[in-house]
């Protein structure tokens, strides 16, 4: 055989072996199956009789047999081999492959190998990032000399196994970490969502209890003066489980607070740490951890179980971590409440400034609400630390630059100049970069960005504003005279910084949420309302001044049959969610309305659709279809305040029929529709509850006030009406809830109707429509209107048919309610009447004469004019 050919065959064989071991399909196997498969393949490829995997137990530094082929006894016996000893131990210690040609005469630690009758062995280390995690070895029952190629193949298999072991371990620890993280996140997420302390505690306790499956949870907080622990909240336990108050060092919780470390009592009965009361409870085991904020004990979180149980190290760790988060959440919540108070104070102050401003016409535009708060805080910081300046620098979005945001004292000018400091440069920049307090006793020894600091300030102390690892800015104080800031000074400054950071963070989060929701909602309200024939429409939307954006919306849309859809709705939830629900409901309503269903059906479909929305969403809606030609409005209501019909003549009425439950409230709600007539000059008003309902006023009172306004303001144009209603019901003050209003006013009756129409038979129908409506406004009854319509159509038909041939011609129709108790019609065209053609024509004149009281045709050079008049019973009686 040609040596080259043999070489090629060997290479091919080797490649095939490599492929056998590193095949991609292996990746899909579970860990155990993968190892078993690899051991099988390794023995096959190397023609070995046994194969085994041993993994290092880090705790004892021993190799433990984990998987084997042909050597299953080794795994069963859980053979442990110290690293460094025997065959496998040496491989692990020396980190490279070792071959044993003669097992029977070698230093073998594991007797099983010899008992099994192995003659030769080859082993390779399992390496992960340079570290040994185990050993893979193969053995033969006949003597054999392993080659370098064999060793290389085995090492390849070992690498593959090492990777699988590593992945599986990583996965396992990832999974455990993720699970813990998820449960801890649940604790933290609650902390963010609820900022009022009591609400916060309610939620947190439930979640903490679920963390380790405890039965009782108690949160005790250290009183402000630091003297005693006071029970703040309990879950599943008597309120005074251990007594409502405990001195530090007293009882179980008191000891935890005093020592600042977690304590576990596995058997409550036999513990000496108990208050008598606690001994009387049915608790079997207890665990408590201190609530720590910046190393200070602020309270104790205690959990108990009725069954006796042992708490693993892991449980204690988990509870302590939950405790840390709760401590922070409670602290944030306290700060937030203080912040809210400060905000209220600042708002009051701002209001005062605004008044002074309006009186003195002094431009104070640069003062904004947030700056007010900041300046108040800074004043406090400066005073407490007895400094000459206190300033806040806020990081921009990229955290690359700090901008002077507010200052109190000698640096105030810096804010006006909008001084910017790059992170990493100058004093503030260094604090931001290091994310830890920096004290400089002599400013002249460091680089400062602002020349101002060098000139006026001698000593500085600065701390970063950090929330959840995000650097938001820097707070610093400075003195004109040389001063060595103490650790206490810095601690105080840090306390203020924590406060400030939370306040800035909250205001940013709030601003972002508010901005997104407001933008979303605004994009969903119509920019412009469509024109409604013979009516005018006006709308107003007033955002609430409350915490979050509301979900009010309205819509006006022409339908295919010439009617108009009017809708107004209010989603119960708030914020971004409300805005998105509102968008979905609005679009769904549009779709159902366009399908041409009546209001009751549309609301039924919308209700069914609301049930499909994620979460439980309630919304109220009023949907109305208005027919401009008749003034008839058909409406249905889903839990919404009743529309108001402001009458031109007569008292205003609330349209409170056709009521059904709110959307999403009940399964299979049914809705009914009702009908009303919007007469000429009447106004139909749709609104949301924000108009009539306020925290300090009952809805009935609001409705009464609205009716009272409507009684005296029937003649208002719709845009005036909505403005005045808002002013009347809401006054100058702000509203918590948002308010939407939509007014449609049917055009008032006009004494005169004037139409210019193309001389085409197809316009006769719409001419009659206009005329019919006008006749209604001037008091013609149904029969009279019919007669006049026929007469007018006859005259118009003559104008169309007889007057002239060519296109582009027009004729005019004029109607006027005359003083004599009737109406007068004039139909005018530019042509000349011709005698009727055909046998059955010419009855038109007969009809006009018979149906009208007066009839006259004048034909001149300018054309033909038909004058007709008819007395109307209603007008004669008036």
């Amino acid at each position, binding site marked *: 055989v040609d040596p080259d050919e043999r070489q090629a065959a060997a290479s091919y064989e080797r490649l095939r072996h490599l492929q056998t071991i590193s095949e991609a399909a292996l990746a899909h196997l579970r860990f155990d199956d993968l190892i078993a498969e690899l051991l099988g393949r390794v023995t096959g490829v190397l023609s070995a009789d046994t194969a085994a995997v041993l993994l290092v137990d880090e705790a004892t530094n021993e190799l433990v047999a984990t998987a084997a082929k042909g050597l299953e006894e080794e795994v069963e016996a859980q053979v442990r081999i110290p690293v460094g000893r025997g065959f496998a131990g040496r491989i692990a210690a020396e980190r490279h492959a070792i071959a044993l040609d003669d097992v029977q005469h070698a230093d073998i630690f594991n007797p099983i190998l010899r008992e099994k009758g192995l003659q030769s062995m080859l082993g390779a280390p399992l390496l992960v990032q340079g570290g040994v995690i185990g050993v893979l070895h193969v053995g033969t029952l006949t003597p054999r000399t392993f080659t370098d190629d064999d060793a290389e193949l085995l090492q390849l298999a070992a690498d593959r196994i090492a990777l699988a072991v590593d992945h599986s371990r990583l996965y396992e620890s990832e999974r455990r970490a993720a699970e813990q993280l998820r449960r801890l996140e649940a604790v933290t997420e609650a902390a963010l969502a609820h900022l009022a302390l009591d609400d916060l505690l309610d939620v947190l306790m439930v979640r903490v209890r679920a963390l380790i499956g405890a039965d009782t949870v108690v949160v005790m907080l250290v009183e402000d003066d630091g003297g005693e622990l006071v029970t703040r909240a309990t879950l599943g336990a008597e309120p005074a489980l251990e007594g409502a108050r405990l001195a530090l060092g007293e009882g179980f919780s008191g000891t935890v607070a005093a020592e600042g470390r977690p304590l576990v009592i596995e058997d409550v009965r036999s513990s000496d740490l108990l208050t008598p009361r606690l001994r009387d409870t049915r608790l079997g085991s207890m665990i408590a951890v201190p609530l720590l904020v910046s190393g200070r004990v602020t309270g104790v979180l205690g959990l108990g179980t009725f069954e006796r149980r042992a708490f693993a190290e892991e449980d204690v760790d988990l509870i302590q971590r939950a405790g840390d988060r709760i401590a922070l959440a409670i602290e944030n919540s306290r700060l937030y409440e203080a912040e809210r108070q400060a905000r209220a104070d600042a708002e009051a102050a701002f209001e005062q400034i605004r008044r002074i401003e309006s009186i003195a016409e002094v431009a104070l535009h640069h003062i904004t609400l947030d700056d007010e708060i900041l300046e108040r805080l800074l004043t406090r910081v400066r005073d407490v630390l007895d400094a000459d300046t206190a300033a806040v620098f806020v990081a921009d979005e990229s955290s690359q630059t700090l901008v002077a945001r507010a200052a109190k004292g000698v640096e105030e000018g810096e804010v006006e100049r909008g001084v910017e400091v790059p992170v990493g440069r100058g004093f503030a920049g260094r604090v931001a970069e290091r994310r830890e307090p920096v004290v400089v006793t002599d400013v002249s020894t460091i680089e400062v960005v602002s020349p101002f600091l060098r000139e006026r300030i001698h000593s500085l102390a600065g701390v970063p504003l950090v929330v959840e690892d995000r650097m938001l800015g820097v707070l610093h104080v400075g003195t004109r005279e040389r001063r060595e800031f103490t650790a206490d000074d810095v601690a105080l400054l840090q306390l203020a910084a924590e406060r400030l950071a939370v306040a800035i963070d909250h205001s940013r989060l709030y601003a972002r949420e508010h901005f997104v929701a407001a933008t979303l909602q605004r994009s969903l309200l119509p920019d412009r309302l469509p024109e409604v024939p013979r009516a005018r429409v006006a709308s107003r939307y007033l955002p609430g001044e409350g915490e979050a954006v509301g979900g009010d919306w309205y819509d006006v849309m022409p339908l295919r049959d010439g009617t108009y859809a009017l809708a107004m709705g209010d989603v119960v939830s708030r914020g971004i969610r409300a805005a998105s629900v509102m968008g979905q409901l609005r679009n769904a309503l549009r779709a159902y309305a366009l399908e041409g269903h009546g209001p009751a059906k549309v609301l039924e479909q919308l209700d069914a659709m609301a049930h499909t929305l994620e979460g439980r969403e309630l919304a109220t809606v009023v949907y109305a279809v208005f027919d401009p030609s008749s003034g008839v409005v058909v409406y249905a209501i889903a839990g919404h305040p009743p529309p108001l019909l402001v009458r031109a003549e007569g008292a205003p009425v609330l349209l409170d029929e056709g009521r059904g439950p709110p959307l999403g409230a009940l399964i299979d709600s049914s809705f009914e529709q009702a009908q009303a007539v919007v007469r000429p000059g009447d106004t139909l008003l749709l609104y949301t509850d924000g108009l009539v309902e306020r925290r300090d006023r009952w809805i009935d009172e609001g409705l009464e006030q609205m009716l009272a306004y409507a009684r005296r303001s029937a003649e208002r144009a719709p845009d005036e009406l909505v403005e005045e209603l808002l002013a009347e019901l809401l006054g100058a003050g702000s509203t918590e809830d948002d308010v939407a209003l939509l007014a449609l006013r049917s055009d008032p009756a006009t004494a005169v109707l004037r139409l210019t129409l193309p001389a085409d*038979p*197809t316009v006769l*129908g719409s001419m009659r429509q206009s005329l019919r409506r006008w006749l209604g406004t001037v008091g013609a009854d149904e029969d009279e209107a019919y007669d006049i319509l026929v007469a007018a159509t006859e005259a118009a038909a003559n104008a169309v048919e007889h007057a002239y041939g060519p296109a582009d011609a027009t004729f005019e129709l004029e109607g006027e309610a005359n003083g004599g108790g009737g109406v007068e019609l004039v139909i005018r065209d530019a042509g000349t009447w011709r005698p009727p053609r055909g046998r059955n*024509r010419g009855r038109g004149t007969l009809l006009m004469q018979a149906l009208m009281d007066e009839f006259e045709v004048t034909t001149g050079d300018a054309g033909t004019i038909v004058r007709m008049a008819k007395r109307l019973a209603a007008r004669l009686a008036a």
Partner: protein
Amino acid sequence: MTDMGSVSFESDGDVVIARLAGEVDLSNAASLGDRLAAAVPNDALGLVIDASATTYLDSSGVGLLFDLASRLRRRQQRLALVVPERSSLMRVLGIVDAASAMPIVATLEDGVARVRADD
């Protein structure tokens, strides 16, 4: 809303029934007249026009009815018109004396009976 005229047909044995609904004026009288005439086969006894749902009818419609009556008469077929009593339409028909050209009755049964009558 304008509801321009429409017509639908059915038959009651040898009598064709046409339901004329909506508004009839110059714009649609001619085409409606053609459709009505075409709907009556030679072997039918005649046509009943049910105008109960006719909301408007003026001289164009009246002309259509007179035309139709004379066309059917030439074919020795009969025409009857159903119009509710005391309707606005009845006033118009009264003025032009439509009853001189065709029987005008209040119900469909009467209309069919008049077309089948042996007189």
